[in-house]
């Protein structure tokens, strides 16, 4: 088990390092692409800014608070997208048959799939998210302590882990339905957009869904509500909002199991 993990991480590192080197051959192109990624993903925040030129609060949240939510989810999602975002090309590989090639190499398939065409330009989204998060933190009405700062860091990291789990599960479903990448996109990219807004603007059923079914609420909603000292719309006990890391571990474990089941199904059907 430990050996597999080590082998996976090592293989992942090798492939990623090679793609970074390949990208850096065209340095200007890398800079332009990263800048482009920064600007395009930042348009979502510009939309929020435009909205706030007409209103003062959205679902009871002011602009700095929204910036905190937005920055946290963007940073988490950006990290997961950078590290695992290409795993959803699995479906295409299954369809054109090139997936078999991954099975021939002595490196765990998930590591290869995740590292495939690693795109450093996706740093753009992370930088953008972190900038907005920083601005939000500096403006919200919160008494910052070391504890709260650490809580924020843990929030971003476990958020990234939760998004990663969704990416892995989404990729795994493509073993059964090779065309399913759009469905998983609605949870990853769609989830990221959802979490940019406060939970109070959505229907309770939706909030319940992203809390208990696909645990996206633990990416930023629940922990950020605690940071901001607000009630959560579902009225859950306070300790729930601290469960981010546990939820992340559980989600990753579940995603890993789904991936294994998917891979096993592929290897016995050869679809």
């Amino acid at each position, binding site marked *: 088990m430990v050996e597999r993990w080590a082998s996976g991480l090592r293989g992942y590192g*090798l492939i990623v390092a090679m793609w970074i080197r390949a990208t850096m051959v065209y340095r200007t192109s890398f800079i332009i692409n990263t800048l482009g990624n920064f600007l395009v993903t930042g348009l979502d925040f510009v939309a929020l800014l435009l909205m706030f030129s007409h209103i003062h609060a959205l679902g009871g949240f002011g602009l700095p608070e929204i910036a905190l939510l937005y920055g946290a989810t963007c940073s988490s999602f950006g990290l997961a997208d950078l590290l695992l975002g290409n795993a959803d090309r699995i479906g295409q590989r299954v369809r054109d048959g090139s997936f078999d090639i991954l099975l021939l190499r002595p490196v765990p398939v998930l590591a290869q799939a995740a590292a495939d065409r690693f795109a450093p330009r996706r740093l753009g989204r992370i930088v953008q998210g972190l900038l907005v998060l920083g601005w939000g933190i500096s403006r919200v009405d919160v008494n910052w302590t070391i504890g709260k700062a650490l809580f924020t860091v843990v929030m971003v990291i476990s958020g990234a882990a939760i998004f990663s789990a969704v990416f892995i599960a989404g990729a795994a479903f493509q073993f059964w339905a090779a065309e399913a990448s759009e469905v998983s996109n609605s949870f990853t990219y769609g989830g990221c957009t959802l979490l940019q807004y406060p939970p109070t603007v959505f229907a309770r059923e939706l909030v319940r869904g992203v809390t208990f079914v696909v645990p996206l609420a633990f990416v930023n909603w629940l922990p950020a509500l605690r940071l901001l000292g607000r009630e959560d719309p579902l009225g859950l006990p306070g300790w729930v909002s601290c469960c981010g890391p546990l939820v992340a571990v559980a989600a990753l474990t579940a995603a890993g199991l789904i991936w294994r089941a998917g891979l096993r199904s592929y290897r016995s059907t050869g679809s």
Partner: protein
Amino acid sequence: MREDQAAFIELHEVCKVFEVHRRTGLLRRERREVRAVDGLSFTVPRGEMVGYIGPNGAGKSTTVKMLTGILTPSSGRLRVAGIDPSRERTRLARRIGVVFGQRTTLWWDLPLGDSFALVRRMYRIPDARYHVNLERCVQLLDLGGLLEVPVRQLSLGQRMRGDIAAALLHDPDVLYLDEPTIGLDVVSKAKVREVLRKVNAEQGTTVLLTTHDLTDIEQLCKRVMVIDQGRLVYDGALAGLHAVGESERMLVVDLEREFPPIEDLPGARPVRVEGPRQWLAFPAGQSAAPLVAALAERYPLADLSVREPDIEQVIARMYGSAP
């Protein structure tokens, strides 16, 4: 781990059944079982070079996929170098090399040399070993000027040579080649065959070769296995296959002017005449040389060529069914 020299690759009653769904109505589906490989048993000793042939859809690729651990057999026992491929796919991966003629195992966007460097790290090839092997592959396969070129810019022949090099860098004990000469020109084909012969002779690499080109088999393999509809239908020497299949080669001659069909040549019969060009069929087991000599004595020859029977024809003749 026991490694039986006499049975380096070993299959015993291996089956692979696929379930195929066919939509028959809006919601109704018909389920059908397809037995791609149906009770296949054979062994290949270490160091042997075997041709594995059969018509399209006979189960060749499915067999290779099971031997590499990509697919799990539905039933039966399968071992490669003492390893059960589907259970220990990653461990086996270090000991086998695979070349697909129709699909590259290299990284499309990377220069060939970078692909090799990545293979080196993935397979943990020791430095000294890697440099010796790379040097040898570059020399044998004429890759000197190509290491800086991205794989997608390589011609088919160059890419194939690159793929073969990548499959050999980690000194595999077994090499599977699926149509390694498909689409290549004569020079590239000859090069590929020469390299395979060398690797087999010098390194003792066990080679399983899938091909549609009987010349590949003729020049490389003493033993050939024929699979049809998932079953092994022939296992032996190529000459024997020709005898069983009563296959014929074709001598195509261009005479200096038109002649009536050449009937007076022992062992050959005319099958087609088109102006000064005639097609003469003769048994595949027979040498073409005396035929050509006899022909040149009696007729003014302008040009000639010999065409090999293709596998579909040989197998079709074996079973009397149309291809």
